[in-house]
């Protein structure tokens, strides 16, 4: 028992020595320059608005006022046509998470964007008609996720 304690104490010292000498945490700081005006900055802004509107949909559900989800859902649906114009060929940038597949599989990208428009319109209809807004918002989320999964880089790939 005592021997084991002595061994563990020694091991502790070894671990401490090794870690203190070479174990300094790496720090990363890649503060990126701001995007210049153009389609990339615009689509980022547009998606930020859509995120804000999506939060309003969630807030409406949480507040028990599903009817309030109609206006933000309509705005999201209405943003899609403009959104699709913000991906001209070559509009790639290290500060953009747009995957190159947007341009190599454009038909599929357009189809998933159209799916957002459909599900957002369905959600707006459900909200106005006192329908199943929770289910409709789940469907819209699935549309968001499907496109993000195929056409948006994970956050850490930006580095």
């Amino acid at each position, binding site marked *: 028992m005592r021997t084991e304690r002595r*061994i*563990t*104490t*020694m*091991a*502790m010292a*070894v*671990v*401490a020595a*090794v*870690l*203190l000498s070479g*174990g*300094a*945490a*790496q720090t*990363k*700081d*890649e*503060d*990126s320059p*701001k*995007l210049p005006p153009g389609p990339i*900055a615009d689509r*980022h*802004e547009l*998606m*930020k608005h*859509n*995120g*804000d509107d*999506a*939060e309003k*949909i*969630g807030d409406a559900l*949480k507040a028990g006022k599903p009817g309030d989800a109609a206006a933000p859902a309509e705005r999201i649906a209405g943003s899609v046509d403009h959104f699709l114009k913000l991906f001209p060929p070559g509009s790639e940038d290290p*500060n953009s998470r747009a995957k190159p597949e947007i341009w190599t599989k454009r038909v599929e990208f357009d189809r998933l964007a159209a799916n957002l428009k459909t599900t957002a319109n369905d959600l707006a209809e459900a909200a106005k008609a006192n329908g199943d807004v929770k289910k409709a*918002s*789940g469907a*819209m*989320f699935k549309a*968001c*996720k499907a496109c*993000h*999964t195929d056409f948006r880089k*994970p*956050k*850490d790939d*930006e580095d």
Partner: protein
Amino acid sequence: MVVLALPAAAMLGVACASGRDVAASSGDPARGREVFALAGGCGCHTPEKGPVGAGGRELETPFGTFHPTNITSDETRGIGEWSDAEIDGAIRRGVLRDGSVETPVMPYYRYAGMADADVRDLIAYLRTLPAASQENRPHEVDLPFPRLAFRAWRWLFAPDVTAPAVAPPSGVERGRYLSDHVSICGDCHTPRDRFGAPDPEQYLAGAVDGPLGQVVPNITSDKGTGIGSWAVSDIENVLEMGMLPDFDNVQGLMAEMIDGIGGGIGYAQASKADRNAIAEYIHTVPPIIHRVEKKKDRGGPG
């Protein structure tokens, strides 16, 4: 003496001959599936393209590169030949079959608080994983005496936890139990010190450099840097489908814990009641101000 010794020997013989079977039949694999789902499908042990439990992708840490092992029922590469007690030892006490102590990359010190009944059920479920013949790869440890170091680490940092016989049945207490000892939220969401030990002062406050180098969010109830503005249902949405309040989807390791990895299961396949219990508990975690996003993520995109 002889009279006394004989029954003892006979009992020992019985125990040795059938120990595993008796123990194995004590767990319920159906309930074990729920534990497995709540444990993120033990996703570290599954390769990205499956099969489930065959041994996971490498984990780079400041202390070396580790290769999660094959936990399928394969008799030579997996745990098919292990007794229930041996599997329990590996899950809750960090002890391997040869008596050595596991690397703390395997969070046995969190599973240490898993209820006896849940471990039995989990083991019964693990035994149903189809055998996969993937070989285990040795860890590449950047420490001079890894076996000693792992033993020392356990001695120094593993909290003294007593596992209950049975898990709390419901409510916030169940949520706390699941969060701390089954879903082990703190294993990624709590930052670690230079010894790789989670910092108890920063419980669930997020990590800048989490597993696989990913940023892990602060999930305390701080309004500015955590999720203090979220409702319980927002947390449930994350656990059920990876949905964030702005309809963005969770990515990275958390998405794998939710959806499962390599065809496996995750939080999404756990029961709604258990996801709700976790969400109810997480909602009560005291606020800690700790900003973990990278600078460029602040203030919106651009």
